């Protein structure tokens, strides 16, 4: 292609040397690589080089270039952030990164249960620890994110019951609702149950009115998108009284304190694992789980990989493999359940590391600390003139709605002023939830000290 004297030898391409190219071409009796492209019609061939910026061939220059672009970002390490809403800033224990950066896990893909025994065991253990947290016997190998998991749980319930009607609470993340609606619509009739503006939870009256014997599933998140912990038992019992499957989305980090949904009647439980030791990465750290009891007919509805423990020819040795593989599109193409593919396995392994580090006490301590910080933040914020906490008499995990209507300022204005003090204010809800006026979703986790919360309150007092 190029003049041999000026040709670049690429470090990622061993055979980019002239010697290798010549040797291989000669071995296969080809004059040039053009022979291999003979089947591509001339008129489909690109007649010019790709139109791209000049490359940074040296590692140093490449690193400088990308780092310079990244330096235009301001991270949550540099600022004080109170953003939540589906992605959460938590402490990531060092061991989580130590493990997920290992070449053995980072660069593996789809080896057999023999050469990739470690991947199978690590994911089996992740599922097993999630199973303890959720008190359920079946947990899948992670799907893309909590949205995907929720959408699939709704489809699973419809396949299982043979019905089409799904009731979905409007208290879930608006993007999750958008994803569920499009993903399910060819086989599921989605009906949205509105938010009770007083409690910030699902409107029980609307749910009662919508339920009938054609309902396959009632889906809600607990805590919901607005941070409110619902009376899940009431909702699940109501759903079950119509033979609908109660399906609950849950933040696994809440479960050191909150009851696992299985204990209050949920039959399908899903959620997001990003909070379990995975960096936010601008939303790239998400991963989803689906769990249920070990009911064969329900297990057969999973589209995902399910890794099971299996004996080997050596007594006592643990092996692993795919459980009921014939459920999947890998085995049956369009006759399998939905589809399965590369999703977020490394985050599953990482979440397993996190759960094994935290243990029972750690999971209790972190959830309890988050409840306490939220209660403190609610109290402090409510005492600031002009600020209202609309659902103040509810219990909140991680986040709650803060209303600024009486300040005369918009959330956008307030957040811009906070940013000047290196504070990322809560997520602006005014567009998606106009019924809440000028409100924002403020999030507090274990990384927020009392000082941080006081700093926020002082800054808010100053800017509103």
């Amino acid at each position, binding site marked *: 292609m190029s003049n041999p004297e000026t040709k670049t030898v*690429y470090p*990622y*391409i*061993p*055979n980019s040397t002239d010697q290798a190219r010549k040797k291989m071409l000669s071995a296969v009796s*080809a004059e040039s690589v053009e022979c*291999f492209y003979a*089947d*591509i019609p001339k008129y489909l061939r690109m007649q010019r080089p790709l139109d*791209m*910026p000049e490359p940074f*061939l040296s*590692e140093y220059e490449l690193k400088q270039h990308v780092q310079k672009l990244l330096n235009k970002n*301001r991270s949550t390490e540099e*600022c004080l952030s109170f953003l939540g809403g589906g992605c959460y*800033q938590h*402490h990531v224990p060092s*061991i989580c990164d130590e*493990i997920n950066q*290992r070449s053995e*896990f*980072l660069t*593996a893909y*789809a*080896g057999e249960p023999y*050469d990739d*025994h*470690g991947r199978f065991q690590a994911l*089996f253990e992740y599922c097993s*620890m999630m199973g*303890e947290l959720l008190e359920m016997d*079946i947990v899948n190998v992670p799907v893309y*994110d*909590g949205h995907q998991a929720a959408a699939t749980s709704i489809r699973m319930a419809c396949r299982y019951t043979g019905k089409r009607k799904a009731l979905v609470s409007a208290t879930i993340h608006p993007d999750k609702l958008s994803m569920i609606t499009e993903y399910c619509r060819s*086989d599921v009739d989605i009906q949205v149950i509105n938010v009770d503006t007083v409690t910030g939870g699902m409107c029980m009256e609307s749910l009662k009115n919508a339920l009938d014997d054609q309902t396959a599933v009632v889906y809600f998140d607990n805590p919901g998108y607005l941070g409110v912990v619902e009376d899940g*038992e009431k909702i699940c019992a109501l759903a079950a009284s119509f033979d609908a499957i109660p399906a609950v989305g849950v933040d696994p980090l809440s479960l050191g304190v909150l009851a*696992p949904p299985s204990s209050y009647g949920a039959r399908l439980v899903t959620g997001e694992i990003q909070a379990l030791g995975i960096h*936010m990465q601008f939303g790239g750290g*998400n991963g989803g789980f689906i769990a249920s009891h*070990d009911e064969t007919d329900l*297990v057969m509805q999973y589209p995902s990989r399910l890794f*099971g*423990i*299996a004996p*080997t020819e050596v007594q006592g040795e*643990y092996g*692993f493999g795919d*459980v009921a593989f014939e459920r999947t599109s890998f085995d049956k193409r*369009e*006759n399998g359940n939905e*589809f399965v593919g590369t999703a977020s396995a490394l985050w599953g392994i990482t979440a397993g*590391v996190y759960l*094994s*580090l935290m243990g*029972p006490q750690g999971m209790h*301590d972190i959830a309890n600390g988050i409840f*306490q*910080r939220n209660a403190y933040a609610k109290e402090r914020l409510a005492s600031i003139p002009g600020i209202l906490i609309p659902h103040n008499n509810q*219990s909140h995990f991680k986040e709650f709605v803060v209303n600024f209507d009486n300040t005369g300022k918009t959330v956008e204005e307030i*957040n811009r002023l906070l940013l000047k003090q290196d504070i990322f204010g809560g997520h602006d809800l005014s567009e998606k939830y106009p019924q809440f006026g000028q409100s924002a979703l403020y999030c507090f986790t274990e990384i927020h000290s009392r000082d941080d919360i006081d700093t926020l309150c002082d800054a808010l007092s100053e800017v509103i």
Partner: protein
Amino acid sequence: MTDLTKNPIEDIRSHRHTDGKPNVRRYHQARWDEPIIFELSAEGERGVLVPEVDEEIKRTTKDVYKNLPASMMRESLPALPELSQNKVLRHYLRMSQQNLGADFQVDIGQGTCTMKYNPKVNEHLARSHKMSELHPLQDQDTVQGILEITHKFEQILKDISGMSRFSFQPRGGSAAIYANAAVIRKYHESRGDTDRDEIITTIFSHPSDAACAKLAGFKVITLYPNDDGYPDIEALKAAVSDRTAGLLITNPEDTGIFNPDIDEFVRIVHKAGGLCAYDQANANGLLGITRARDAGFDLCHFNLHKTFSTPHACGGPAVGAQGASKELECFLPGPLIDHDGERYFLNEDMPHSIGKVSAFYGSASIVMRAYAWVMNLGAEGLREVAEIAVLNNNYLMHEVLKIKGISAPYAEGKRRIEQVRYSWEELYRDTGIHSEQLGIRMADYGLHYWTSHHPFVVPEPATLEPTEAYSVEDLDEYVRTLKAVSEEAYTNPAMVRSAPHNCPIHKIKPEVLDDPERWSVTWRAYCRKLANQNE
């Protein structure tokens, strides 16, 4: 056990591939007999402590659970294992050693998956807190860097494909295929053309091309290859009608044979009123060579974790970058990233979009890694990637076909693009050894290969894709090992049948995995069903 004092093993220099002799590696994977993590638990041990709650907070808030219904409180702590930090580390490190990552081997056996080198500098960049500690809902002025990177990468993909816009929302190739099927559905609906309920695909396209079409509500018509290995054009002509919504197709398919009539396929489907989506999972040999849009495709997707070098990570995180023509870009899952002359912004104003296909904006740090990769190579480098991937494949095929018992079905004597689906049919006929068994025996030598997606259209399949990332010596080592395994099948079939011998575990008894009474997806299920295990 070998007693080395009594039975000194042969001179191991004969196993080193560097001496040019036709020998195979003396290899054994780590075997730790590592227990399940619950078995390592010791009461009261702690792996990491969390920040204490400030006394003042405790004092002010008192009973934080007073508003919580009693049934929402957990009754007892979750039965997670209790381990000190170094025990957790050691356990996971041992498991990692029992996993054969691509960095350790000549990973050319996972055909269709483009197992190329994942540059470490990109990993280092992704670990920067300027990437890892970004919240997706930050003020857009504070994330100009990642928006700019994504926007710039989009411009490069546009030129590689000829498409008009890209969405990076799909978190994997299958998610992008689903998104393409959803766009096809939305497009026809937008025109009131609601009777189109069929999607055509091919048997050598990824199973998700069929599965996602079905998921989006379409009936699936599957084309099979003709004797040349191309999907049958006559079958396509017979399949299209006013019910045709679209075509989901790969080219080259997993056989590595480029379909020269691809633009004719597109024309036939367009003429019938359907759209065409190009699954570019096999794009590695075509970068800068030929483009989806030039063949008439309306949609396409690239797997950044394949063609664009980001790590496979045991199966994700990943990105299926979804591309669309000018006419279809309004249907893409948003937000798209635009530039208003001064700043980059997330464009949420997409009333015709299919909506979200994943949380936030997909796997942003994967896009960042892919951007770093293309910016290291440039136009000339990407062309080199394609050419060397194809050269490596044709060299490998030339050498592999010298091995007894293997063949490359279809299009005999033809060159291939970036991979080949081989067949061990002859070896199976001669020895009774299946392709899967040979693959497992390869693992005894620190290599592996994958057969094929189901159904096995090619009998006793093996799919090899060398990519640009391996040297001629690497390819020679792989071929030498494959040849040795083939010879074993002929001369010592019991050795192959009883493999693996050098892996962390021995042959699995898989029956329990399909038996609801015994299958155990979690440790708690296993303990509950333990009594059934030995039935």
